[in-house]
C-alpha cells in the first residue's frame, strides 16, 4: 500500500463504510470468519444431501406416491419395510447385485493387477498401450451397453463368432440365456472398468522405491517372493481403494445393464438399482421405493465403513 493514490482510495473507502459495520467486521474472531466462509457450503449440503436423506427416511414410512399429489399421505409404520424384506423378488434382485459386484471385483482386481504389472515394465510403446487400454473407461456406460448388444447378437455379433472359432456351439445367445446373461454384464463391466483398477495399481507400483527390490536381490529372493513380500503389500492399499470405489459404483449399477439386458431375461439381471428405478419412477410407489433406497443406503454405508476400517488397518 505504498502507492499514495491507493492509500488515499483506501482511506476514502474506510471513511465511507458505516461505523457500526466496520466495528462489527473488526470484532469478528478467526473462528467466526471461518464459519462465515463455510456456512454457504454447509447450507448447500443440508439442502441437497441431508434434507433429501431425512425426507426419504420419512417417506419410507408412508404410502406417498409422487404421481398422485392430491392423495392423502398416510403413515404406514414399518409396512413398506416388512413388504420389502418379506418379498422373494427383492432377495433375488439383491442376490443378482451381489453376484455382479463380487465377480466383477474378483475378475477386475486380478486382471487390473496383471495389466498394471505388465504396463509397469519398460518396453517400447508403453505409453501408447497404456492409452489404448484406458479407452473403454472413457466411454459412456449407456453407449457401451448399446454397442455390446450388437456385439452379443447371436447371429451377427462378433462375440458369438469368436466363441465359435474355438468351440462349434452355434449362435451364442448371451443376453437371452438365463445362465449366460449374468456373465454377459460381468464381461462388459470388466472390459470397461479393468483399466481403472489397472491405473490405481500402476500408481501403487510406481510408488515402490527401487532400493527395496535391490535389497531383495541381495537377499537372493525369487520373483514370487519379491511380488509377495514387496509388491503386493505396497500395492494393496491402492487396490483396496479401487475395490471400494468400484464396489460402490457397481452396487448402484444401472445404465449399462439397462441398455444391455433391461434386467432380463425375466429378472435374471435386474439389479437392485434397476428395480428401485422401476418402483420409484415407473410404478410410482414412492414410499415403498424410499424404503428400498434406505435399505440399500444402509447396506452400502455399513459395508463401506467396515471396508474403510480394514483399509486403514492395511495402511498401518
Amino acid at each position, binding site marked *: 500500500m505504498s502507492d499514495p493514490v491507493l492509500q488515499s482510495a483506501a482511506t476514502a473507502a474506510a471513511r465511507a463504510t458505516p461505523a457500526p459495520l466496520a466495528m462489527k467486521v473488526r470484532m469478528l474472531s478467526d473462528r467466526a470468519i471461518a464459519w462465515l466462509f463455510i456456512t454457504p457450503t454447509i447450507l448447500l449440503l443440508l439442502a441437497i444431501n441431508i434434507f433429501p436423506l431425512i425426507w426419504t427416511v420419512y417417506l419410507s414410512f408412508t*404410502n406417498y406416491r*409422487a*404421481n*398422485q*399429489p*392430491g392423495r392423502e399421505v398416510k403413515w404406514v409404520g414399518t409396512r413398506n419395510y416388512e413388504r420389502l424384506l418379506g418379498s422373494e*423378488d427383492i432377495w433375488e434382485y439383491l442376490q443378482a447385485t451381489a453376484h455382479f459386484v463380487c465377480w466383477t471385483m474378483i475378475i477386475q482386481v486380478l486382471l487390473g493387477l496383471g495389466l498394471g504389472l505388465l504396463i509397469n515394465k519398460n518396453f517400447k510403446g508403453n505409453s501408447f498401450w497404456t492409452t489404448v487400454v484406458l479407452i473403454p473407461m472413457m466411454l459412456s456406460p449407456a453407449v457401451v451397453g448399446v454397442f455390446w448388444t450388437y456385439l*452379443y*447378437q*447371436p*447371429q451377427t455379433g462378433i462375440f458369438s463368432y469368436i466363441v465359435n472359432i474355438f468351440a462349434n456351439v452355434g*449362435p451364442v*445367445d448371451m*443376453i*437371452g440365456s*438365463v445362465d449366460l446373461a449374468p456373465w454377459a454384464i460381468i464381461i462388459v463391466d470388466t472390459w470397461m472398468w479393468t483399466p481403472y483398477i489397472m491405473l490405481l495399481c500402476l500408481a501403487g507400483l510406481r510408488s515402490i522405491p527401487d532400493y527395496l527390490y535391490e535389497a531383495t536381490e541381495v537377499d537372493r529372493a525369487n520373483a514370487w517372493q519379491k511380488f509377495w513380500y514387496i509388491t503386493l503389500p505396497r500395492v494393496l492399499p491402492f487396490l483396496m481403494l479401487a475395490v471400494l470405489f468400484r464396489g460402490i459404483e457397481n452396487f448402484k449399477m444401472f445404465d449399462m445393464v*439397462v441398455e444391455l*439386458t*433391461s*434386467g*432380463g*431375461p*425375466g*429378472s*435374471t439381471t435386474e439389479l437392485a438399482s434397476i428395480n428401485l428405478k*422401476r418402483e420409484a*419412477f*415407473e*410404478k*410410482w*410407489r414412492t414410499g415403498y421405493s424410499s424404503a428400498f433406497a434406505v435399505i440399500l443406503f444402509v447396506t452400502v454405508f455399513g459395508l463401506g465403513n467396515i471396508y474403510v476400517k480394514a483399509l486403514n488397518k492395511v495402511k498401518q
Partner: protein
Amino acid sequence: MRHLRTTLAAAALSLAATTGAQAQDKELTLCWAAWDPANALAELSKDFTAQSGIQMKFEFVPWTNFADRFINELNSGGKLCDLLIGDSQWIGGSATYGHYIKLNDFFDKEGISMDDFLPATVYAYSTWPKGTPNYWALPAMGDALGWVYRKDWFARPELQAEFKEKHGRDLAPPNNWNELKDIAEFFQGREIDGKKIYGAGIYTERGSEGITMGVTAAMYAWGMEYDNPETPYEMDGYVNGPAAAEALEFYKGLYDCCTPPGHSDAYMVANLDAYKSGQVAMQMNWFAFFPGIAKDEDVGGDKSGFFVNPPQNVEASTLGGQGISVVSYSDKQEEALQYIKWFADPEVQKKWWSLGGYSCHKAVLEDPGFADSAPFAADFLEAMSHVQDFWQEPTYAELLQSMQKRVHDYVVADKGTAQEALDKLVDDWTEVFEDDGKI
C-alpha cells in the same frame, strides 16, 4: 359513403392482417411416439397451419421411452405438450389426476359427436370411467395387433406340397393359434434362397410393454378375462384361469420353438427388422406398421400378406392406438382445441387415412370402398370389431410392470409354470388394487 366504405375496408384489412400475424406467432406442440404414423400426422398438420396460421411443432419420442418421457412430463405438470396422443392405458390416470382437460363441453359446442367414431375406439381411447360419456380424448389413431406373413414363400409350390403332406391342409394364413404354430415350426430353421430363416417374430420385450402386448394376444384369443364381470377386480380364476394359463404356456411354446436366436427382448422395431431382413416367415405387429410394410422395397407389394390375430376359443385382438388430448397444463388450450376441431372433420380424417394414419371416423371406415383401399384394410376393420385392452386404471403402470415381470420370467427365463406365473400376477395385482382402495 364512398369514404366510409374505404375506411371500413381498410379497417377490415388491417384487422385481418393483425389476426393473421397473431396466428403466425402462435405455435402448438404435439407430443407422440416416433413412428411412421407420426410422420404422416406431421404431413397432415401442414393443412392445419395453412388454414389457421398456427405453427405446429412436434415432439416425437421413441416407443421405448415414450411412456417414461410423457408420463413424467404429465406428472410434473410440464408445459412441453399442448396436445398429447397418449396411450389408451393412460386415460384413467390422466383423467383422475387432471392431466387432460375434459372435452364434453367442447364437443357439444362444436357439434363433434362421438357417434361419428367407431364405438370400440371411443370406449378405449376417450372414456373414463370406462364406457361412461365422459370424454378426455378424441379417437385419433385406431390400432390393433395383427400378423404379417411372407406371401411369396407361402405360395411356393414345393413348400405348399410339403406342408400339405405334413399337415393335410394348404399352407395359408392360420385359422387358429395351433395352425399358426404349425406354420412357424414348418419354417423354423428352413433354408430359403440360401438363407436360414425362422418361424415367427413375436413380442418378448421386457422393459416397457412388449411381452404383455404379445402374450395377451394369445390370452384374449383363449378367452381370458381380467376380472369377474359381476364383481369388478375379482381376478382369481379369471386372470389365472385354465384358459389363460394354457394360452401363456402356448405362447412360451411358440417362443421356444419358433423365434430367431436372440429374440428375447423384441418389440415392434425388432420384429420389423427381423421380418424386413427376411429372417422370419411371420411377425406379429401393430397395424400401424402395415402401410410401411406394404410399401417396403424388399418385402412390400405381393411379397407380404396380412391376417388378423387368429382366434382360439374366441375372436380377439390386442388393442393398440391412441386418442388425442389437450394437456391441462398447456397455456394454449384454445388453439389446441382448434386443432382437435380441425382434426375431427371427416375430410381431414379421410386424408389422414390416405397418408398412412388409421382413422377411427365412421366416414372413413364405413365408406364402401374402405375395405379395398389397402391390402390390410379389411383385416383392420375385423380386428377393431373385437379388440380388448389392458387395464386402463390410474395404476396401470404398476399393473403393467408386474405383468411384464411375471410373464417374462416364465416365457423367456423358464421360471416356474404358467399357472405359477399367473397366480403370482394375481397376487401382485390384488396388492395394487388394495393399495389403491379399489378392493
